[in-house]
């Protein structure tokens, strides 16, 4: 029989090991790190976690993270409001923002179509995107879903939906490492990708 930790500690380790990228060993390490810290430090960490969860919301328009109803990008009057860049995750939005090259708006789908992961079109923020296209004055859509098969399928699915609306649809298409995800593309390739976008046939 293997050694058992006392219950509160075992629970903490268990909680950590549920986090992405954290295995049982790292979970143990983190738990012992917490125990070693002063009560004040731990309290401040716990408070930061709670506050982040309570105060950080999704923008009601584009899905970006924000502490207000509408995010800074959607509020910013200097941004080009005729163009929307559609991404899978907030992480991708941040990656594109970091290039400093893109001045339009965003729309976060919250994933890509992937039945194997239980994600069908109705689980994505597609309805709200179509609603935006009908109410805002959008001239161009950039489909910046990931260059893997799920991203491709999602892009061509969206393209079929948007086609009848007479809006120019382009697909981010250049220099992004094949099969990768946008998050790992560096800023130079992303900038190239945005400039080299192509009209979908």
């Amino acid at each position, binding site marked *: 029989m293997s050694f058992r930790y006392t219950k509160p500690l075992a629970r903490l380790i268990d909680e950590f090991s549920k986090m992405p990228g954290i295995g049982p060993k790292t979970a143990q390490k983190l738990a012992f790190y917490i125990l070693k810290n002063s009560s004040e430090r731990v309290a401040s960490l716990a408070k930061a976690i709670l506050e982040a969860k309570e105060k950080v919301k999704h923008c009601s328009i584009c899905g970006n993270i924000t502490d207000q109803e509408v995010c800074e990008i959607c509020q910013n009057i200097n941004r080009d409001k005729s163009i929307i860049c559609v991404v899978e995750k907030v992480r991708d939005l941040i990656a594109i923002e970091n290039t400093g090259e893109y001045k339009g708006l965003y729309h976060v789908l919250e994933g890509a*179509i*992937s*039945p*194997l992961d239980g994600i*069908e*079109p109705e689980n994505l923020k597609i309805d709200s995107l179509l609603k935006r296209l009908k109410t805002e004055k959008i001239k161009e859509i950039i489909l910046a879903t990931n260059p*893997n*098969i*799920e991203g*491709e*399928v999602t892009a*061509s*699915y969206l393209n079929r939906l948007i086609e009848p609306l007479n809006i120019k649809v382009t697909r981010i298409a250049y220099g992004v490492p*094949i*099969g990768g995800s946008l998050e790992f593309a560096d800023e130079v390739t992303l900038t190239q990708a945005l400039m080299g976008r192509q009209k979908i046939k």
Partner: protein
Amino acid sequence: MYLKTLRLNNYRNFLKLSINFTPNLNIFIGDNAQGKTNLLEALYLIIRGNSYRTKNDQELINWSNKSTCLYGEINKDEENFQINLSLEKKLESFNKFKLIKTIKINQNIQRKSILNKEFKGVVFSPEHLQIIKGAPSIRRKFLNEQISQIYPLYYRHLTDYYRILGQRNNILKKEINQRGLRERLLIWDPQLIEKGSFLILTRIRFLKKINYLADKFHQKITKGKENLKIIYQSNILKDQQENISFISRAFEDKIKEHKEKEIKYKISLFGPHRDDFLVCINEFNIASYGSQGQQRTSVLSLKLAELELIKEREGVYPIFLLDDVMSELDEERRHFLLELIMDKKVQTFITSISLDYFNSNIKEKSKISKIEGGKIFAL
């Protein structure tokens, strides 16, 4: 490209070995279970960094030892490379071992992929008869491996295709109404067709090319008595089409026509994942009608074609390893096969139970060794 030297330490049944080779034909004679196949496997390990026999590297370490070292010297384009490969069992916790593999090229630690890019080898082993006799999945694997080597784009489309299949089969297994099912499938079908048609076309083109080469060799070995024909069998196309838009259209029609069936069986029934190829001699299918010798000769012809494809791409011949190839071939076929290899100036390693299979002319030009209980003697 050729191997000059091999040294082994605590490798399989070889505790210590040091041997030099000729750039031409190297023959190893030995009774059963003396180490002939082990030796060919060691040569392959030097040039490729992994075994062609096992996925479990631990098997390579001699039973009574904790580590093994292999060393080889390769000459390629007048340049010398020293290759070291070591495997070491390291104690992780009191009862767990971890196997550490280190590959060095000219004393610098390198990844296996660097080795793979630089050096190539083609193996014939009796198990490869399965390419003819085995299940269709073995032939698909053969095709996929061969084409991926020369055409990286193929590999990418292949992995995409299998990912789409997974998604599509997942949809087919869902308990929802027909209409919803059809709608969801339609999201994936265009990509399935695009990638799938590319795979089919590339396979047909590849087989055509390898057929041309293999047939030439087959005719030489059989003195013109037999011709070899490879036919791709697609469950979408009636005959071997080479027009991509024709293939895609046929693919699209097929899944449209049989959607009912796919929904009933809850699985994707059409596409390159179900395809196969036939090997025919003088118009009959040798998987069903071929003799053992004919099947063996056909696999050899395929391997010789593979040798040519690598030469075409890399500019130099790879190393050719032939395990137990002589048995089941009659004297005439043996003779023509050896002549062919000698003509090509491909460094070749052949194992055999008996030296009687080789005529005096061949023997004169080769380096012959005898393997006995993990030791090698010059003959």
